[in-house]
């Protein structure tokens, strides 16, 4: 399941959906809006997407992960618009019979999402300035 949303990411609902007697391991990663990056203070993050292509790329990620690892559940939700401090911008949930595959798939999904999916983050700093993050070097 892939989703772009302008609402709060409901982490509990995602975990509940992935947890079943068919799996032995459930892994969830949340990317969260952080207040301090080194010395600079963030007020919030704003996310923009090329939505049609972002959905297509996310679908390709899900297919590729399912081909590579025996995961019985793969949930990717990315939030768009304003994401306040301490709230999740992205959730990746994987479930599998054994834990190593849930970890491997989860880490690959978030790493690859950050490389490939056409979504952009704008830092809104507390001093009122804003910066689009277009660095090739990735952070969070």
């Amino acid at each position: 399941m892939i989703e772009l949303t302008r609402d709060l990411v409901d982490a509990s609902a995602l975990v509940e959906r992935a947890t079943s007697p068919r799996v032995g391991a459930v892994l969830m990663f949340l990317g969260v809006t952080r207040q301090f990056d080194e010395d600079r203070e963030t007020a919030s993050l704003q996310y923009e997407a090329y939505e049609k292509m972002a959905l297509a790329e996310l679908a390709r990620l899900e297919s590729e992960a399912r081909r590579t690892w025996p995961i019985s559940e793969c949930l990717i939700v990315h939030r768009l618009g304003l994401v306040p401090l301490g709230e999740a911008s992205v959730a990746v949930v994987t479930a599998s019979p054994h834990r190593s595959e849930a970890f491997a798939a989860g880490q690959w999904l978030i790493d690859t999402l950050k490389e490939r999916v056409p979504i952009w983050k704008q830092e809104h700093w507390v001093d009122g300035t804003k910066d689009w993050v277009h660095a090739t070097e990735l952070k969070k």
Partner: protein
Amino acid sequence: MRVVVKLFAGAREAVGDSEISTEIPDNSSIRVLRESLLKRYPTLQPLLPHAMFALNAEYAGDDASIPEGAEIACIPPVSGG
């Protein structure tokens, strides 16, 4: 042919519009499009060398030729997650 290119994030703001257009020869490659945009939209100069392009919502390399009527997008370095 006249092509329309979708812009996002920093590229959109550099130009002040979410779409731009330019005239290129029929069947041009992405490389030709990139050069044409560089000439016509100088404010894109810092970002364009680092941007990818997409044809019909799929990444396309610099050698890909642009079909008539394709949906074209300029994809500056992404930062989702």
